């Protein structure tokens, strides 16, 4: 849902800016963000890994959601889609990014990584090891603009 509505902004944490976004109008940014979701299983894969089948209901309305004009009244859209099934405080709650975890930034993955001293280079190296990409330069053959494909064989 966040990708479909472009509900993202860079995160400022510990003196640095993370998750920077390209300078694009929201309508174009939403399309790019959604492309990334469509090619991966990051939304449901972690659950599948534990034997749980998960569906992303907003995906069924993705075409219509991407056609919405900017600016997107997210709260109104969620309320309409839920048709009264969600309490008002849920649809109106302030967004807390999973990467940060909570308002004190203690539990999210970003604070954990920063505290552990792991930066993007080390994460890239770990990704390469996990997917048997022997030359880090080849990363861009696997991931481009948030979209990914299987590593080329024999590299």
């Amino acid at each position, binding site marked *: 849902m966040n990708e479909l509505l472009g509900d993202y902004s860079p995160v400022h944490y510990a003196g640095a800016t993370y998750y920077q976004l*390209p300078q694009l109008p929201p309508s174009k940014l939403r399309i790019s963000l959604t492309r990334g979701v469509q090619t991966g299983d990051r939304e449901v894969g972690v659950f599948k890994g534990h034997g749980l089948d998960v569906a992303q209901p907003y995906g069924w309305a993705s075409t219509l959601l991407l056609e919405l004009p900017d600016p997107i009244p997210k709260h109104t859209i969620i309320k309409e889609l839920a048709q009264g099934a969600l309490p008002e405080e849920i649809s109106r709650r302030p967004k807390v990014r999973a990467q940060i975890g909570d308002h004190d930034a203690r539990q999210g993955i970003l604070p954990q990584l920063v505290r552990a001293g792991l930066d993007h280079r080390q994460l890239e190296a770990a990704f390469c090891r996990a997917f048997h990409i022997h030359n880090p330069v080849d990363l*861009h*053959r696997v*991931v481009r*603009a948030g979209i990914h*494909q299987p590593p080329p064989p024999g590299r």
Partner: protein
Amino acid sequence: MQPGQSTQEIAATKIEDFVRQIGTIASDDPGFHRQADLFDAGYVDSLALVALTAFIEETFHLSLTEQDLFHPEFTTIDGMARLITTRIHRSCTPPHTALP
């Protein structure tokens, strides 16, 4: 647009100008040319590619697919221009004269 310029040349010029702008590439950078692999050479990263993709789609009124982004031609300015030109010509070709 200069008289006699081909669609491919125009496309390459527009893409080169855009990549130079978003990549803040020096005008005398010897490694930057239209046959350079923009990804291998580090002129375009994922963030820049998102902007470039949006620029191409808006400028040339076409949609790029996920496969396009990984197409071997889509690594150089000239290759991108060829892909765009092919796509434009294909969309202008009447159905009864389309190539198999």
